């Protein structure tokens, strides 16, 4: 059942590096991370790689496998032909520290900028009442394991470092959406999302949604509705005049998926 897997693994640091060839024995049912661990244990003890749970729950082992951004622990070797060479490189959008480990501090900086959940001041812990149907939209976004693969593939920052200061990225767009859709949150972050976090940069190519290992519909369920809400607040004088600190939840008309255009006549 087992066979010798040919691998090419990027090794290096901030000053540069190269793909290094390895041949490593692998067994039936194994994933790419198993092969990397076997390399560490037998051929390259100092091969740098992040991992924790090895079950797709912590989002630590993101890398690009044959050019495709994936979690190493959830990529089974059976998806490759045994004769195929499996190439593993670090995620490209963030600076390399060493080998497969990159500096993802960008994401932790963006996290600091998110205004926290703010419940109504007079609501005591234990008194919260929310219907399941009302929490489900935000729950979808809270499935995020922070693997940052969506950040990695986002065109706005993948090849444009200069956009990073003004762009939170898909991971944080779902965080803003989660808070905006939380039935009991009282803070309006929409102006901030437009003006400081760069929601407008997103041109809805859905690359983030495609790579999400949690299958969160980032574009359809978070980014597009947030673009809609931001636009409503910005351009509709009546909405701007009457809106409370937080508008009540209402179903919105989704954007036309083929064009990404939003129907402004609906909503508010």
């Amino acid at each position: 059942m087992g066979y010798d897997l040919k691998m090419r693994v990027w090794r290096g640091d901030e000053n540069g590096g190269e793909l290094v060839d390895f041949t490593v024995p692998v067994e039936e049912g194994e994933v790419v991370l198993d092969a990397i661990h076997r390399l560490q244990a037998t051929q390259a003890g100092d091969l740098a790689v992040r991992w924790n749970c090895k079950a797709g729950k912590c989002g630590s082992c993101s890398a690009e496998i044959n050019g495709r951004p994936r979690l190493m622990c959830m990529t089974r070797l059976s998806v490759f032909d045994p004769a195929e060479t499996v190439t593993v490189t670090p995620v490209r959008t963030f600076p390399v520290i060493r080998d497969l480990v990159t500096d993802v501090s960008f994401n932790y900086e963006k996290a600091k900028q998110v205004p926290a959940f703010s419940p109504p001041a007079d609501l005591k812990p234990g008194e919260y009442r929310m219907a399941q149907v009302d929490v489900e939209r935000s729950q979808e976004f809270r499935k995020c394991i922070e693997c940052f693969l969506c950040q990695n593939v986002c065109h706005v920052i993948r090849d444009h470092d200069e956009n990073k200061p003004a762009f939170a990225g898909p991971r944080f767009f779902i965080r803003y959406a989660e808070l905006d859709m939380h039935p009991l949150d009282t803070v309006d972050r929409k102006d901030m999302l437009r003006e400081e976090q760069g929601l407008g940069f997103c041109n809805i190519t859905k690359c983030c949604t495609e790579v999400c290992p949690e299958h969160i519909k980032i574009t359809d369920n978070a980014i597009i509705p947030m673009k809609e809400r931001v636009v409503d607040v910005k351009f509709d004088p009546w909405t701007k005049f009457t809106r409370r600190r937080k508008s009540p939840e209402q179903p919105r008309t989704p954007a036309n998926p083929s064009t990404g255009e939003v129907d402004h006549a609906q909503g508010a």
Partner: protein
Amino acid sequence: MSEIERHSYDVVVIGAGGAGLRAAIGAHEAGARTAVVCKSLLGKAHTVMAEGGIAAAMGNVWAEDNWQVHFRDTMRGGKMLNHWRMAQLHAQEAPDRVWELESWGALFDRTKEGKISQRDFGGHRYARLAHVGDRTGLEMIRTLQQRAVAIGIDVFMECTITELFKDGDRISGAFGYWRESGRFIAFEAPAVILATGGIGKSFKVTSNSWEYTGDGHALAMEAGAPLVNMEFVQFHPTGMVWPPSVRGILVTESVRGDGGVLRNSEGKRFMFDYIPEFFKAETADTEEEADRWYDDHVNNRRPPELLPRDEVARAINSEVKAGRGTPHGGVYLDIASRRSAEFIQKRLPSMYHQFKELADVDITKEPMEIGPTCHYVMGGVEVDPDTQMSKVPGLYAAGEVAGGMHGANRLGGNSLGDLLVFGKRAGEDAAAYAARVVSSRPKIADESVTAAEKSALAPFEREGGENPYTVQRDLQETMHNLVGIIRTADEVTQALSRIEEFKGRVANLSVEGHRQYNPGWHLSIDLKNMLLVSECIARAALDRKESRGGHTRDDYPATDPSWGKVNVLCRLNDARTGVEVFHQDLPEMPDDLKQLFDDGGH
């Protein structure tokens, strides 16, 4: 003395899982300058793997539930060896800790009335676990992480603590290295909270991540704080068994709580054959009664699949040994034949995903193959139940690294509550302690820093020594084979003699490469901790000559009431070359709590 990066805080928390983050929030809100130091990135700690839920007697589903019932379940689950005061505080305070998470943004699943929904779990009389599908740990860690960030707590990510400093008998700080650069860092702090989790990486088959190398257990021992109950290691009954690369990965108890049953290769629900005397009165003895229980907890008794984890793990072990196991050496966990595909996908989304992607098994259509996996250590640092301070002034422990709360066996769902309740208590008391010693802050001696540096760098100095990965694998094999789920004096004695050999091997490791993000070097340092806790487990296991909870002796199969009054503790011997055990009487439960038990708490 070399110039290394230094920081000064009132409270330094080691570990950023549920306990560490809750402790840091508690310390910060009590006014202490607080830092969190963690081996991984923030939000990746092992808490993220917790699936089922947080046990808290909120009474949202069954109004009959209250803290006394939860306390009783916890003590009985722990075979009465728990520190009664910890079990009491936990049962009393868990609901407030859950509601607090909600006020920080956690979104639990709801009841029809819009309250937090609660699910059934092994050993809990009522549906009691607050949950979010089967990803409750993720919800908890994200909530705490976001809270810690929002209030501006300093976090030192990918930074490993290797030693604690003392000034006289008091804690004075901690020493470690940045994983990224390999450079050293020292923290001056009168209060240090260990929140480092468990020890699972000492075993071959485990649900635990690479971080679980017993760092806090070992740091405490080195600092002079004894460990209690180290013989009690929980093997979770349901880990994946196939394919080999996922062996040990957890399958949540919620599968059974939500209706899943265990069957052997003959299709039999074998748990009915393994109901111990201790739980007979409250366990269903027919499939019909067991099946009625899901809808009517009051008039029916619990299914035997929901006995505490130690009972279920031993039963599975026996079935496999008797030749009634699955092709890959487990038993079947079947929910497909009992619940609709829609129900399963809604209640157990990440289990569905995990089996589909890693094992090509659709759990809505076919049973899972599962078997026991090393999951949790009940033993840990002996702490004061109210403050979580260890025997060393200024040194605290909270969460899995602390001992006492769970006795001989932990109930599912009681870990997440433990992290919150005792994390908060530790953080608040550490802040108060730091304030008390503000005029006489303990100091770090320069020689200690130099010695810590030298010790950490030693594996680079040695040429031709052994590869740390090989030693780790051999240690895991030894613990798995000789100090695993079923133990005998002969095997544990063998393990101890191998542990002596490992000491020589660990002292002679070599690593390749340089200090920057070098996993081989990191492992060589972690291995010392793994070895020390392995010795604790083996010595305590040899000492306790009975079977109870997470400690099963084939040569002493009965539970012995005289051992029910004794705690086994571990400390370093005088020469600091190994571990010695000693005994302490169990603290006496007050009469009002004793009355909660049919037999008066004996």
